[in-house]
């Protein structure tokens, strides 16, 4: 999730917004495959359309499409595989969202709000 989130960042998470993710927000959620806590950006919310495999998917009223900020080309250049996000595990049910990461309180040089941005093209 660099540069928005760097490894070791300390984040405040607002759990009250878990059920209405807005496009561009950074959210903490439980991965459908593993149940592990993960962090990605909301690329599409309930009812939105996302491009996929030459066509498109429509999000159900209870799911969101969560993507890493980095493209596959960027992670490949860094020596990693593709980002593990909705392109891998599909739409994420909203009840798996833990909350919206909205503020970074450490490290000191990076303190500040985490802005909503346009997510990477789905």
């Amino acid at each position: 999730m660099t540069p928005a989130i760097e490894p070791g960042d300390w984040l405040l998470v607002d759990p009250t917004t878990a059920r209405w993710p807005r496009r561009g927000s950074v959210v903490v959620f439980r991965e459908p495959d593993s149940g592990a806590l993960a962090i990605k950006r909301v690329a599409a919310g309930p009812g939105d359309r996302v491009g996929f495999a030459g066509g498109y998917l429509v999000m159900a009223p209870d799911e969101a499409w969560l993507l890493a900020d980095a493209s596959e080309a960027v992670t490949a250049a860094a020596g990693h595989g593709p980002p593990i996000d909705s392109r891998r595990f599909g739409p994420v049910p909203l009840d798996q969202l833990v909350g919206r990461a909205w503020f970074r309180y450490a490290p000191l040089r990076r303190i500040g709000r985490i802005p909503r941005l346009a997510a990477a093209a789905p």
Partner: protein
Amino acid sequence: MFLTAVVRLLAPRTVARAHCDLPCGVYDPEQARIEAESCYKIIEKYAANDDAAFRTRALHIKEERAELVKHHLDVLWHDYFKPEHLDTVSGLHDLFWQATKQASKVKASTDLADAQKLLDLIDQVDAAWKATGGPGKTRVAGRPG
């Protein structure tokens, strides 16, 4: 001492990951083929045995193997094949769609013809893997012939 206590107080209680895959880079449809052959053989054994406990175990193992077929096909589809391969192999998405659907069918079926159809589809995936240079790109060289 005081500072350490404050840092400990403020430190996050949970860790969230934003990870990427770290693939080994070894891909071969043979993995899916072997699991699919297991399904085929288990269906044969299931049909040739009347023992209820044996047949129950056979169905359970076949379902596990069919699930592994889907897993191995998914790994090939997601991680090995790249957008540029669509130019080399037409109908690649449809082939994987059919193959994974067929694996689901074999999971629930005791019809040998279904298992054979799955093997045929995996052989088509194997042809696509070879057509895109899979053996040279993904396997470790030096294995005795």
